[in-house]
């Protein structure tokens, strides 16, 4: 049963995400038509914000994993690094894609190259893409792991930078609606509830994915080691 915990997390997370979408499309109230160019498209917010939240969790895991590998040579740290990059890439792409859909409907353009939040988050996603593709194309070794861990460590600088970007430079991307620090945000309670369910579901889902990704990396290492033994090496 313990071996199936990641699958249980994935199942619960997936059901939660589906419920979020159902509630977001059918139950959450509409926004004021005057405030938005495309009020219907605003409902993508229930996907966009939780996936961005999950991406930040994944990038945090990537940072911790990179540090553990780089400074402690921890095999567990390397597995965290791999899991963090894969989850960060998936959540980053979901965030960027949903943001582009909303931007196309609301702003008339899917991307704005002058907006700091959009571009720093885009860079984070590209970093995750580089790490995933790089790991697949390079032979596994200490130098390769050190190089990718360094990128994971320095790339994390973009996370707090992305977080504060709309507080300092609000260009296109809307400012914070929760945790804004002034009047507690501008969300209605039913909208906040759907958003909370979404954030919890994405968190459970991405934890399940990272657990299964760590298991795969561990299994691949064991398989490689066993095959070397079979071939007559150590």
């Amino acid at each position, binding site marked *: 049963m313990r071996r199936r915990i990641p*699958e249980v997390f*994935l199942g619960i997370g*997936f059901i939660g*995400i*589906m419920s979020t*979408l159902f509630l977001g*499309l059918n139950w959450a109230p509409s926004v004021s038509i005057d405030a938005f160019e*495309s*009020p*219907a*498209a605003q*409902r*993508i917010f229930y*996907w966009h914000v939780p996936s961005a939240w999950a991406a930040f969790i994944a990038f945090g895991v990537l940072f911790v994993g990179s540090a553990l590998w780089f400074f402690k*040579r*921890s*095999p567990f740290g*390397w597995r965290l690094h791999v899991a963090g990059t894969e989850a960060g890439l*998936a959540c980053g792409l*979901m965030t960027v*894609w*949903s943001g582009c*859909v909303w931007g196309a*409907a609301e702003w008339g353009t899917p991307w704005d190259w002058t907006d700091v939040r959009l571009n720093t988050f885009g860079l984070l996603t590209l970093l995750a893409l580089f790490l995933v593709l790089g790991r697949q194309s390079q032979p*596994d*070794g*200490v130098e390769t*792991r050190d190089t990718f861990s360094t990128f994971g460590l320095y790339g994390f600088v973009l996370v707090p930078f992305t977080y504060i970007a709309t507080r300092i430079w609000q260009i296109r991307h809307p400012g914070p609606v929760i945790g804004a620090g002034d009047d507690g945000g501008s969300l209605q309670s039913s909208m906040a509830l759907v958003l909370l369910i979404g954030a919890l579901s994405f968190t459970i889902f991405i934890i399940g*994915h990272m657990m*299964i*990704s760590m*298991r*795969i990396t*561990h*299994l*691949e*290492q*064991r*398989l*490689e*080691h*066993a*095959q*070397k*033994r*079979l071939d007559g090496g150590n």
Partner: protein
Amino acid sequence: MEGTNYLTVAYLGMIAALAIWTWTVVVRSRSIETRLEAVESSIGIDVSQADAIATQSTDGTQDDSTV
């Protein structure tokens, strides 16, 4: 209503992508698990020796410190 349809299509695309990604990962994990069980049971290997790169790296650090 047109906007909602557009949104639903965008959502369905992402849900399909999530489902495919999850399915691929679970299937890959199970397939490696089965292969590994077969190989390891035939040679009797210790799980703690799994990450040869980490072992090699730690050994290298110890070697350096003793020089």
